[in-house]
C-alpha cells in the first residue's frame, strides 16, 4: 500500500531548462548562507557554476557572525553594528540599542564587578529621558547586588528569554535595513509545499479514478484550497462574497456606502439604471458612490 506517486503533481516546463535549475540552486545557496553553512554554500557555487553577488555574501556572513556571538552572550559585535546604524534604527522607532545595553549591564552586575557596571551605566544616560522608567529600574538593581538579583523585584530582568528576543529583534531590524527577507524563501516554500502535497496527491488520485483531466497549469487553479497559516501569508486576498472570485487589479474590491465590500464586477451586475441596493442590507445608493479600496 506504500506506493510512490508524487510524479503526478509536478509540472512540465518549470524546472527543465538549465537556466531554471540554476535559479533554483541560487535560492538554495542563499538558504545555506542564511543558515550560516558557508562551506556548503561555497561548494554549491563551485559545483553548480553559480554566480552570487559578493556584497550579499558578505552581508550574510557578517549577520551570521554577529548572531552567533550574541547567542554566546558576547554582545560586542552587535553593539558595534547597532551604534553604526543608530540613525536608521531611530527612524524605525527601534529600542534595540537600549535592550542590548541593558543586557550587557545586567551581565556585568551579575559578575559582581560593581565598578565596571557603574562605568557601563553611563551608556544608559542616553535614554534617561526617553525610557526613564526602564533606566530607573536598572539603576535600582544596584541595591540588590549583595542578595542577588534573583531574589529582587527585578528578577524577571534576568529571564533568558530576553536574550533570545534581542537576537530576534536584531535580525528583524538588520534584514529590514539591508532590504533582505527575514526568513529563507526556500524554507518557506518547502514548508508550505509539504503541507499542501498530501492533499494534492489525494485529490489527484480521486480525479484519476473519476477520469477527469489531471493537468493543471497557469491558466487553471489548483483543485483545492490551501491555507498555510498566518506565518506564510504575505498578501491580503479578498474573495468577492457574491461571485466567489478573487479580486484582482482589473476587478478590485469596492466599498458600498453602508460599509459592505463586494467586487466591481458584482456591482456591475447588481446595478439597475443608476441605482444600486446593497445585497446585504436595505441601504440604497447611486451607482457612482461605491469607492475602490486597497488592502
Amino acid at each position, binding site marked *: 500500500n506504500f506506493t510512490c506517486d508524487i510524479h503526478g503533481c509536478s509540472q512540465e516546463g518549470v*524546472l527543465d531548462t538549465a537556466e531554471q535549475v540554476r535559479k533554483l540552486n541560487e535560492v538554495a545557496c542563499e538558504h545555506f548562507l542564511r543558515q550560516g553553512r558557508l562551506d556548503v554554500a561555497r561548494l554549491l557555487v563551485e559545483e553548480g557554476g553559480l554566480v552570487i553577488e559578493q556584497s550579499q555574501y558578505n552581508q550574510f556572513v557578517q549577520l551570521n557572525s554577529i548572531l552567533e556571538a550574541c547567542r554566546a552572550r558576547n554582545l560586542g559585535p552587535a553593539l558595534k553594528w547597532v551604534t553604526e546604524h543608530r540613525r536608521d534604527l531611530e527612524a524605525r522607532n527601534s529600542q534595540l540599542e537600549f535592550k542590548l545595553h541593558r543586557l550587557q549591564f545586567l551581565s556585568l552586575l551579575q559578575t559582581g564587578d560593581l565598578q565596571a557596571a557603574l562605568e557601563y551605566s553611563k551608556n544608559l544616560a542616553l535614554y534617561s529621558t526617553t525610557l526613564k522608567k526602564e533606566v530607573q529600574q536598572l539603576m535600582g538593581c544596584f541595591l540588590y547586588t549583595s542578595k542577588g538579583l534573583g531574589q529582587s523585584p527585578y528578577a524577571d530582568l534576568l529571564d533568558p528569554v530576553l536574550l533570545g528576543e534581542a537576537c530576534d529583534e536584531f535580525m528583524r531590524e538588520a534584514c529590514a535595513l539591508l532590504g533582505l527577507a527575514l526568513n529563507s524563501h526556500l524554507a518557506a516554500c518547502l514548508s508550505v509545499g509539504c503541507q499542501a502535497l498530501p492533499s494534492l496527491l489525494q485529490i489527484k488520485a480521486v480525479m484519476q479514478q473519476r477520469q477527469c483531466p489531471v493537468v493543471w497549469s*497557469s491558466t487553471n487553479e489548483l483543485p483545492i484550497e490551501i491555507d498555510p497559516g498566518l506565518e506564510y501569508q504575505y*498578501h491580503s486576498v479578498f474573495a468577492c462574497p457574491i461571485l466567489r472570485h478573487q479580486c484582482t487589479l482589473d476587478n478590485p474590491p469596492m466599498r458600498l456606502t453602508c460599509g459592505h*465590500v463586494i467586487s466591481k464586477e458584482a456591482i456591475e451586475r447588481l446595478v439597475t439604471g443608476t441605482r444600486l441596493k446593497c445585497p446585504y442590507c436595505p441601504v440604497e445608493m447611486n451607482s457612482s458612490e461605491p469607492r475602490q479600496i486597497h488592502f
Partner: protein
Amino acid sequence: FFGIMADVKALEHATLKVPYELLNKKFRSTQKTIDRETSSIVAVTNDFSARISDSGSKMTVGEANTMLDNVVQRLQSLKRKADDGLEQELQLVDTCKSRLEHLGDYVKEGRLTVSSVQSWKRKRMDRMLVDHCLRSGFYDTAVQLAKDADIEQLVDIEVFMVSRRVEDSLASKDTIPCLSWCYENKSKLRKLKSTLEFNVRVQDFIELIKVGKRMDAVRYARKHLSSADSSLLGEVQSAMCLLAFSPDTECPPYKKLFDPVRWDDLVRQFRQDNFALHQLNGQSLLSVTLQAGLSALKTSQCYQEEQQNIDCPVCVKPLNHLARPLPFAPFTQSRLICHASNTRMNEHNPPMVLPNGYVYGRDALFAMAASSNGVITCPRTKERFQRKDAEKVYIM
C-alpha cells in the same frame, strides 16, 4: 495523527524503499555466494571421501594432507564470506531501522513539543536538499551538507556515489564499470526490461569500428550482440551495417550512430535505470514540493510591482521567474492582513478604511492615533487623517 501519517505516506517513500532494496540485493547476493561456496566444499569433501573409500589406489599422507588443506581452505573462505555478508546486511538493517525510528519520532502521538516538530521538519528539509544535490551531481556539496546536518544515515549517499563512478567512467568512454554494474544487477534489470547493457555493447562495437578494428568488432558482435533480444534485431542490423561505412560518413542514419553524443544518452539511460532499480522517482522530492509550495503561495499581487512584499518568496526573483507557469491556489474565503502591523484583520481586529481608500486594522490605526494625538498617517501614502475619519468596512 492522520494528517501526519498522510504527510509521511506522501513524502517519505524513497526514505524507506531505498535501504530496503539495498538490503534485498545484499541478501540475495550473499545467499548466492554462500550457496556457491557450500557446493564447492561439498564437491571437495566428496572427492576426498571417494578417494579414501576407493580401495583401488593408496593415498599417501602428503596427498591426504593436501586434500584436507583444500577442504579447510574452502571452509575458511566460506566463513569469511558469510561473515562479511552478514556484517553488510546488519549495516543495512541498521540503516533501515534508524530511518524508521526517525520517521517514528515524527509520528509519535501527542508526545511531541512544538520545537521538536520544528527541528524534525528542518531535518526533512535538509534531507530533501541533500537528495536534490546528489541527483544534480553536486556530490561534494551533498556530502558536506549531510555531515553538517548530521543526517548521514538518513540519506542515500552511497547509492549516488556508485552512480557517480559509473557516470564519470561513461563520460570518459570507459564501459567496464558500467558493464560490471549491469552484471551485478542483472536480474533486476531484466525485470525492468532494460536495454542498457545492449546499448553499451553496441557502443563498444561502434568504437571498435571507429578505430578501424573491424575484425575485432565482428568478433565482439558475435560474442555479445548475437544473444540480444529479438525485438532489438533492427538495431543490431543497423549497427552491423556500420561495418560498410567509414567513421566520417555523411549518410544520416549511420552518421547518427557514430555521433559521440550517444555517450551522453548512455549516461542518461544509466541514471534512469539506476533510479528505477532503487525505486527512486525521476524528479526530486524537492522540486515537486517546491512547485506545490510556490503554487500555494502564488497570488496575482506577486506579479504587480507595487504590491510585492519582500518576505513573500514568490514576489522575489528568482522564484518569481520559476513560479510563472504554475497555477494559483484558489480560495473562496477572504484572508486579510493589515499592511501596517502585519496581523490578521478579522472580527477581533476589524478592518477600517481611511478617506484615501487604504484599509488597515483597527488596532493599528487606534494605536497610531493614541501615540500621536489622534492623528493617523497612512503608512503607504503618508497622508494624514483624524481618527474619526476612519470608517468601518464589512467583509462577509
